[in-house]
């Protein structure tokens, strides 16, 4: 019998798992994918929002501000990439000024610090590549960027080190009420738990309806993105937003924390919760809209990849983080769309505040609060690099030439807690294959390492899902 069963190993499930691992609890995370970060958490803008867009008084507003404030410390504790690069919302027409002011006042109500409306020229002085059409901008120093993979993996790894179990390849098929507990029936096993937490992303409504009759509807709102070569990554230093629309925050133009340029997302409500495909229309729209933010939009040939993610949009437009009305000890963490990533540092705590009074566990004294991430050799000072190479010569062998990822980093990714088992798992942990050649060069080499280290044949190696055989 588990105390807590968390459904979903995305950033929300991982955040909850990490928080609960501070307590003397038997916790398990069940995940249908073969790794953490396989759903919405892997395909989003990677923005740590300042918190000016959420309606004041909503849970989104509260958790966003707190999450933003705590992201920096968390990034130090768990060693993931985060940068407070600042955001800017640009306004290109007089008619948009009211919206801009509304955002500023929203932000103030939400507790966002140091915002300022500046003129178009002031904005261009800060960001010289901004469009000449910008007449004003909301300057928001609190905005940041984060690597969503690293963040999710760091939370999960730390939870794992602190005793949380992870059951991958376990799709939840049903949940049954039992005496004093729930029985979570997955594609592989049955798990009994006193408390069930629903962090199933776009499928949270399906999971919810397994135990509750209170209606919930999560719509998959697709966002398509285009990612550009690092040569273009310095076009802007801040995240440039356009004025928001009904469907979301509009198309942004941002450096990523690793130095690429990212544009997108679109916002399309789709019926298919597996519809993570890109479309020609979507990519064109993202690039066309993004080009309105800047002068000299990079040419299409500078693009290195495109992807799309599905926001878990709930009709009430706010997070649903609470115990289901008609299902005691079943806690939803649903509708976690933007700014869900920004809230990761505090969502766990918010959920824990519901769980802890129910079980009254002791706080662990030996909780390990810090985690050391994979050492990215190429970004270390030369002396440090030399030292690591002397310790382990695998750090001198480059496997991914574009991102300069060494064999040592890949071996670390495989052998650390919740280690990588798939090509995408390696990619998200190390960035091998994320560069401009998009894994053309490193795929065979990485596969040889996976094969040797895990003792599986090349033909058994998967890209990500259970049917995604590379060869």
């Amino acid at each position, binding site marked *: 019998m588990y105390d807590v069963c968390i459904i979903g190993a995305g950033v929300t499930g991982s955040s909850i798992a990490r928080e609960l691992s501070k307590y003397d609890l038997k916790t398990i995370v069940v995940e249908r994918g073969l790794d953490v970060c396989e759903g919405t958490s892997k395909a989003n803008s990677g923005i740590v929002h300042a918190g000016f867009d959420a309606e004041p008084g909503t849970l989104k507003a509260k958790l966003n501000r707190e999450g933003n404030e705590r992201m920096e410390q968390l990034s130090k504790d768990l060693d993931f990439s985060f940068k407070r690069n600042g955001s800017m919302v640009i306004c290109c027409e007089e008619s948009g000024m009211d919206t801009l002011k509304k955002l500023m006042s929203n932000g103030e109500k939400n507790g966002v610090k140091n915002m300022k409306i500046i003129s178009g020229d002031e904005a261009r002085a800060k960001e010289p590549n901004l469009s000449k059409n910008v007449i004003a901008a909301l300057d928001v120093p609190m905005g940041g960027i984060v690597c969503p993979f690293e963040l999710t993996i760091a939370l999960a790894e730390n939870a794992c080190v602190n005793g949380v179990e992870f059951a991958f390849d376990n799709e939840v098929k049903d949940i049954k009420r039992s005496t004093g507990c729930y029985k979570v029936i997955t594609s592989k096993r049955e798990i009994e738990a006193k408390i069930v937490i629903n962090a199933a992303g776009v499928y949270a409504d399906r999971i919810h309806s397994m135990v509750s009759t209170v209606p919930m509807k999560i719509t998959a709102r697709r966002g398509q993105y285009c990612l550009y070569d690092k040569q273009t990554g310095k076009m802007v230093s801040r995240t440039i937003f356009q004025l928001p629309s009904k469907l979301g925050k509009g198309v942004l133009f941002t450096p990523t924390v690793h130095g690429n340029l990212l544009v997108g997302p679109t916002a399309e409500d789709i019926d298919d919760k597996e519809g993570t495909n890109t479309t020609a229309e979507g990519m064109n729209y993202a690039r066309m809209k993004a080009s309105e933010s800047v002068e000299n939009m990079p040419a299409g040939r500078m693009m290195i990849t495109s992807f799309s993610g599905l926001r878990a949009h709930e009709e009430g437009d706010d997070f649903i983080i609470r115990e289901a009305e008609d299902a005691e000890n079943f806690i939803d963490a649903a509708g976690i769309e933007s700014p869900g990533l920004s809230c990761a540092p505090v969502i766990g705590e918010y959920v824990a505040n519901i769980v802890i009074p129910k079980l009254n566990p002791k706080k662990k004294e030996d909780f390990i609060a810090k985690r050391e991430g994979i050492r990215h050799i190429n970004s270390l000072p030369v002396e440090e690099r030399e030292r690591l190479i002397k310790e382990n010569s695998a750090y001198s062998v480059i496997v991914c030439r574009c991102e300069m990822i060494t064999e040592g980093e890949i071996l670390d990714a495989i052998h650390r807690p919740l280690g990588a088992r798939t090509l995408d798992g390696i990619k998200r942990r190390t960035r091998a294959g994320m560069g401009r050649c998009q894994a053309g060069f490193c795929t065979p080499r990485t596969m040889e390492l996976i094969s040797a280290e895990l003792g599986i044949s090349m033909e058994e190696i998967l890209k990500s*899902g259970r049917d995604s055989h590379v060869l």
Partner: protein
Amino acid sequence: MYCRNVDIAIIGGGPAGLAAALAAREAGVQDVLILERDTKLGGILNQCIHNGFGLHTFKEELTGPEYAARFADRVIAEGIEYKLGTMVVDLSKDKTITAMNREDGMFTIKAKAVILAMGCRERPRGALGIPGFRPAGIFSAGTAQRFVNIEGIMPGKEVVILGSGDIGLIMARRMTLEGAKVKVVAELMPYSGGLKRNIVQCLNDYGIPLKLSHTVVDIKGKERVEGVTIAQVDAKNKPIPGTEEFYACDTLLLSCGLIPENELTTGAGIEMNPVTSGAVVDNSLETSIPGIYACGNVLHVHDLVDYVSEEAGNAGRNAAKFVLDAGREEAGSDPIIMKTGKGVRYTVPSKICREKVEKDVLVRFRVDNVYKDVKLGIFFDGELVRSVKKRTVAPGEMEELRIRKEELDKFPDVREITVGFAED
């Protein structure tokens, strides 16, 4: 971190690096060091097990590994030093190379001259903007070639190939011979990007259809490729609605162009040519940094390895000259600027330094479309000096012209030389 000095450091031990090393040694420089990231010399030729290499250089048809071995064996016989499994991580303006490998860890090399011979990489799916899912089963043709020829594993059974570059054509035949069904080769352009002989020998001989002016507009399959949709494109390369055709397949190979691999070059601040994505070089193949030379596919993508070897030999000789003439005089006059005329996309070299003209200047270039019965002309400051008739020219094949030394001598004041089509 240890540091050593060498006369000539060559980055890359593929066909370009090997030929450059041999030429440099022949020209009298003893202290030559090749840095190669792979575990053996020869570069990409090692996985090109088909024949057709060396017709110009050796007057016989060799396989890729055989061609490479002709050079590698000589490099070894000459006692030219090389380091394998060695990745160069940085090149600085002052010709200091930072590299690392398992034996030496990190180390630096201060070179009197550097030859860039890093080759090129394949254009990935993302850069092509192909929409659809991102499943397993999408490979660049070269990656698939490595799996089949080096690892001995087939990447798939039912194959669609996008792009008719040479590697794609070669892989169409290779996959077929290994038992796969290659359903179609789609090419965005109205002409193939590969050599004519490869279309005949790799597609026609095996009954594989080539669809020109077609591209992939959708990829189906969440986990592994289940099929692709191909559509015809209009004159602006936009898909024409209603022409979509679905091909069930488990593998999509991409052969959509090669990109010179110039991260080190740009890192050193060397001037680049946006058309070739290679360095700007003069007639000695010297880049904008004196003593740094470029050759082979890192300079511009070649069609035949024979030309790579030839070019690299020139780079090796010129680098040797640079080292042996230490303290040579700086170029006295402004260089002659090479311009592209009608129908020509780029030229290598980009400029000609008169001081370095010893004999005829070889100019290599590619045309921007398929043309028949044209005259390729050399213009000095806009005046046609000479033209050469060509029955057909195509973007897939590199062209060359020689500017004769006596022509240059005859016009001592020429400022610009243009290569382009001449009117009748």
